[in-house]
């Protein structure tokens, strides 16, 4: 078994596809149903990758070949449930998917919002143009139940936040969601979009998300993805951002929750002068594992990308970061910076960093760096010399480590939300100390 590069998935995946096709509750066109079948065939052909595949070297997902997660009917979430979630803010435009299905009664939309919302079940362009070499994207393409297209028309500036929640309600059976979302900004449009993946109970779940983002010329997007699933859950995320000329995206990729998380974030800088700022923060403890892959394609001249991914690890947790910055021929004046820093709070945790540059051009400025280390003794002593006890000093420095990336968020409310989520991470870590 160990020598195989992929394991054939069990039959239940096919059964789930058959059930979806037979039900066809959304009244899908035959073209769309055909897309599902094609995606499924691709998934079966690729199989579940083993750690012998370089891209999956640090993340073992082979148990997904056998383990059964089934879709659950949406229930158990009320407006009050949402009101009680600390990261739901009044005034947001809010789309709520429960068990992968959009809930109109939980959705909150300002009358005047310029955002156009449509269902991917009816949209003809729901199929990604370019199919990545990733079996879980294929699986999502086969089994997604509901999804939305968010269009922000050209020259529109959204003053409010758009918050899309994918919620797993509290239930004990292993459940699955294949979130699917497509965000498009027209020329010179501006928006703030937050996508939250959350589990409200502590039962096992699989969250297999695909997010597509297209920015037309001059569009500006602030994108936050917050993965706050539970400690029984598996998160597989795939985000594909395509940027036109002079567009800008600022992304915050936040992971604190799931037992296992794997996120692939790719950015295609397809227009001259496009820029991307990609920030990331992951916090893992116990035996949690997180694996973030980024791939930035500098395809046109004078684009810039800035990446800062930081990780905090405790107990026996493990993390991996694999970042590729690729400068294509002709992309002169490219400016790429990639930094990954990991803070180890215990002797048993482990972080692997693999920053990569592929440059097919002379006239570029690209830097990368990665560190894995513990808290700095001199900083600890400095704090202690002011009366702060060692545990509090460690806590303060660990939060400071996180703040170094979180402060880059302009949105102060979200900044506070993410800190609050980290609070529970540190509290849980401290309880055992």
């Amino acid at each position, binding site marked *: 078994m160990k020598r195989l590069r992929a394991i054939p998935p069990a039959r239940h995946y096919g059964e789930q596809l058959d059930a979806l096709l037979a039900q066809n509750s959304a009244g899908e066109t035959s073209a769309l149903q055909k897309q599902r079948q094609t995606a499924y065939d691709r998934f079966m052909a690729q199989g579940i990758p083993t750690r012998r595949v370089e891209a999956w070297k640090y993340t073992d997902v082979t148990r997904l070949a056998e383990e059964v997660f089934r879709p659950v009917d949406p229930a158990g979430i009320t407006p009050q449930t949402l009101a009680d979630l600390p990261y739901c803010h009044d005034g947001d435009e809010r789309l709520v998917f429960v068990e992968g299905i959009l809930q109109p009664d939980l959705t909150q939309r300002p009358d005047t919002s310029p955002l156009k919302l449509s269902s991917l079940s009816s949209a003809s362009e729901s199929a990604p143009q370019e199919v990545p070499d990733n079996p879980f994207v294929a699986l999502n393409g086969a089994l997604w139940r509901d999804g939305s297209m968010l269009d922000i028309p050209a020259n529109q500036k959204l003053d409010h936040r758009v918050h899309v929640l994918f919620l797993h309600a509290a239930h004990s059976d292993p459940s699955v969601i294949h979130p699917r979302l497509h965000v498009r900004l027209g020329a010179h449009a501006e928006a703030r979009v937050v996508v939250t993946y959350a589990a409200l109970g502590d039962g096992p779940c699989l969250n297999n998300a695909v997010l597509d983002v297209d920015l037309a010329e001059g569009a500006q997007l602030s994108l936050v993805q917050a993965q706050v699933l539970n400690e029984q859950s598996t998160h597989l995320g795939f985000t594909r951002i395509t940027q036109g000329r002079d567009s800008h995206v600022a992304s915050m990729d936040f992971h604190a929750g799931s037992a296992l998380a794997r996120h692939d974030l790719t950015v295609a800088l397809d227009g001259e002068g496009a820029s991307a700022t990609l920030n990331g923060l992951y916090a893992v403890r116990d035996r949690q594992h997180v694996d973030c892959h980024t791939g930035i394609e500098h395809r046109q001249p004078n684009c810039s990308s800035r990446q800062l991914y930081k990780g905090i690890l405790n107990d026996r947790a493990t993390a991996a970061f694999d970042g590729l910055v690729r400068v294509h021929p002709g992309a002169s004046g490219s400016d790429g910076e990639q930094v990954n820093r990991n803070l180890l709070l215990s002797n048993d945790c482990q972080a692997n960093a693999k920053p990569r540059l592929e440059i097919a051009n002379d006239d570029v400025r690209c830097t990368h760096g990665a560190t894995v280390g513990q808290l700095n003794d001199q900083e600890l*002593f400095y704090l*202690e*010399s002011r009366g*702060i006890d060692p545990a509090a000093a460690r806590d303060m420095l660990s939060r*400071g480590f996180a703040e170094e990336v979180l402060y880059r968020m302009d949105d102060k409310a979200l900044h506070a939300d993410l800190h609050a989520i980290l609070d529970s991470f540190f509290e849980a870590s401290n309880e055992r100390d």
Partner: protein
Amino acid sequence: MLKIRDLKARVVDGPEILKGIDLDVKAGEIHALMGPNGSGKSTLSRVLAGHPDYEVTGGTVEFEVDREPQNLLAMEAHERACAGVFLAFQYPVEVAGVSNTVFLRAAFNAICKAQGAAPIDAFDFRELLAEKLELIGMDASYLERPVNLDFSGGEKKRNEILQMAVLAPRLAILDETDSGLDVDSLRIVSEGVKKLSTPDNATLMITHYQRMLQHITPDIVHVLMDGRIVKTGDHTLAEAVETRGYDWVREAA
């Protein structure tokens, strides 16, 4: 207040640096400890503050807390700070991601708690800070910046004195606070230190040069050489060292 007897110390597993220090500091006094490079000045300051890189190999240090002498060497670094010992670092440490205000308030409240006082709320603390900032000529923009991060040399030294002003220690040890300061900063910092000196606290200024002593007249001056205090006198000793050099002290000793 502070009574050091035959103190010997070294960097962990290194050669002995302090070879028998005797020093008495009383409330209300300002002491200057001078000495050439490598004489052990900074080592003494770090040993008193409880730096983990150093180990004491002999001698005693008593520090009076509520008129009761306590064994300072038995306390952890943070306990010493809570008891009223403050070290102004020669090279203040940069702490990314932690704002000056958050850091100072945590320190202030830790000391309040240790001394049985109620913690201060953010609003009252801001007022306290405003008053102390004025004392050392810093503007409020320092407060929201991460501790010492990208501060100039002079700003870092001022920030040390700001912390000293806020934490109101009973014994302040200033390790080469005058180094790296331009003339104006030196004057401001010295004025600040002078204003903070009261009959109830004491200051131990560690310095290589006499620069700071031109602004602050110490009550007692010690010369440290090769791990021992070789000469003690009044402020004229500092002037003599400045004009005649350490060799003169060595010969006189």
